[in-house]
């Protein structure tokens, strides 16, 4: 087996373990994991931009917001999406996320580095501003409460059933994104990340590649928004605020950018720290802030990068000892 096959096997086993173990836990843990899974789709979508294309977006929460508000507005104002039409809402959520990204991408894609950070921040704030102020549509600061979850053969009010639904979407998204980044298209994204000029000289339309990646990320963001709305039961400006985008970015970096699974691990750790630790100790946010700061200072490749770093250190120290041996040989 190649190293890549081993990695895939580990991920599949981990997913299977989650699917088997979690439903037998108490409802607090089930809800916690469901939330983390829904949000992890957003983090992985961001990782396509950040880790694979080299575009650090500070406004990814906008796509989650669009999907979530769409779900909430359709459900509360039109009673739409509470039966079999839930699947239509999923489709609409994906399309809306993609459409918003298609508009935003036109403005943002040309920018690079710090300017890309700033412009995505501004675009994210546009969506937040509408969510916060457009009272008649979004409920303003209070947000929108979703009273019931969809029911179609399956009763999603049952937390285990709902967990399996979100888990299913998570697994399918992970697979889809994995196929995407392993495809020739995904490889060219990595090429753009490494050296955009060289890709241009090779004849790639790098703008179009980045634009398509941006739209795909937006589509997955919209999907995660639909799931998030039903998981949390409330949609509010909190979901689109700058700190939510920053959270997604930090989760991706914490787990390891450019690994997809790393984003999911980051999401699990942060949700775990935030929701579990906060019930245990009052100073949990110091732990979270400390984890972020330490990761950025000492683990720029994230948790997924640890094995590689250890391997690197081992080979380096081996080389050093050999050099020392050679040096100590009397000539």
């Amino acid at each position, binding site marked *: 087996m190649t190293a890549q096959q081993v990695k895939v096997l580990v991920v599949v086993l981990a997913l299977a373990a989650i699917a088997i173990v979690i439903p037998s836990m108490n409802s607090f843990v089930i809800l916690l994991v469901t939330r983390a899974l829904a949000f992890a789709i957003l983090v992985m979508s961001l990782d396509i931009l950040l880790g694979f294309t080299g575009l*650090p977006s500070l406004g990814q929460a906008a796509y989650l917001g669009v999907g979530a508000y769409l779900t909430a507005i359709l459900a509360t104002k039109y009673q739409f999406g509470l039966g079999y039409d839930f699947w239509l809402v999923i489709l609409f959520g994906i399309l809306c996320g993609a459409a918003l990204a298609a508009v935003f991408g036109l403005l943002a894609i040309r920018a690079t580095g710090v300017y890309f950070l700033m*412009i995505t921040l*501004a*675009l994210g*704030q546009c969506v937040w501003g509408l969510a916060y102020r457009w009272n008649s549509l979004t409920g303003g600061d209070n947000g929108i409460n979703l009273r019931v979850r969809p029911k179609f053969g399956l009763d999603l009010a049952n937390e285990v059933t709902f967990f399996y639904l979100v888990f299913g979407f998570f697994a399918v998204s992970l697979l889809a994104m994995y196929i995407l980044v392993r495809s020739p298209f995904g490889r060219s994204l990595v090429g753009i990340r490494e050296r955009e000029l060289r890709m241009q000289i090779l004849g790639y339309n790098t703008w179009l590649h980045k634009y398509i990646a941006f739209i795909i990320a937006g589509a997955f963001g919209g999907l995660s928004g639909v799931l998030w709305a039903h998981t949390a039961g409330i949609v509010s400006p909190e979901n689109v605020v*700058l700190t939510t985008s920053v959270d997604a970015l*930090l989760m991706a970096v914490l787990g390891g950018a450019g690994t997809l699974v790393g984003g999911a691990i980051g999401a699990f750790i942060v949700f775990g720290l935030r929701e579990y630790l906060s019930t245990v100790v009052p100073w949990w*946010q110091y732990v979270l802030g400390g984890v972020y700061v330490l990761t*950025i*200072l000492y683990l720029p490749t994230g948790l997924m990068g640890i094995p590689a770093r250890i391997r690197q250190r081992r080979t380096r120290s081996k080389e050093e000892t050999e050099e020392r041996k050679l040096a100590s040989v009397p000539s």
Partner: protein
Amino acid sequence: MLDYRYGPSTEGMGVDLRFWLIQTFNGISYGALLFLLGSGLSLIFGVMRIVNLSHGSYFLLGGYIALSVIWTTGSWVLAIPLAALAVALLGLLMERIFLRPLGFDPLRQVLLTVGFAFLFQQAALDIWTGNNFDINPPEALTKTVVVGGVYFPLYRVFMICTALVIGIVLWLAMEKTRMGAAVRATVDDAQMARGVGIDTSRVSMFIFALGAFLAALGGVIGGGFLSVYPGLDFEILPLAFAVVIIGGMGSLGGAAIGAMLVGLADNFGKALFPEISYFTLYAPMALILAIKPTGLFGRE
């Protein structure tokens, strides 16, 4: 009932000349506050190319430290310099100990500053609790002046004057002093500046501390009418970025114009079309960035 915290009264007036006058005045006074916050952020970005997401925390911490000084000494006048200097020291330490060793990597710098913003947030919550506090200025500043039948709160006039004085001092320092010349050189081309013997590392340290100082000053003064509460840091931060982006990064004059534009747009937006008021602020900001990334008045 008139309160110095609110803008001039519009009671009994229709949408007429007075409405425009009052909204303009409110916009300019809010712009004055945003100038204090934005000018520092703009200089930091210009010199170091750092997107400092803990700038809002400096603003908030400035307000909180001023409160503590007022509670212990009872002096508002003393609170302003003490709070600003304390936060400046904090910024200086952050730059020296954490940001400097990181080298130039925009993403890691941004994430580091936001990590600190979270830490400051929790620290502020622990020390000053989650309550809303007002920073009450001295009696003399809570009065109003009447000009042409319109009541202008003196406190807002004071805010405008402070920003004006700070702006002039900064401008003189940038244009007339040796340090200012070094800063301008670093903004234009850091590598060349190092080449001709300017210690850009020292310039960065100085500018970062200055930025924190100005933000904290804004926090103390802003605490008089925004009040001080948890969450203010991330509420005010995007506005500061709007100022920097519209005005142009690294340019003092740009920051002044940007602050006025954002202050006015914010006020008129909320008064005229409240439902999309933030959208009307951030959408132009995104457009400007897309068309001219260095901002309207930024140096190329």
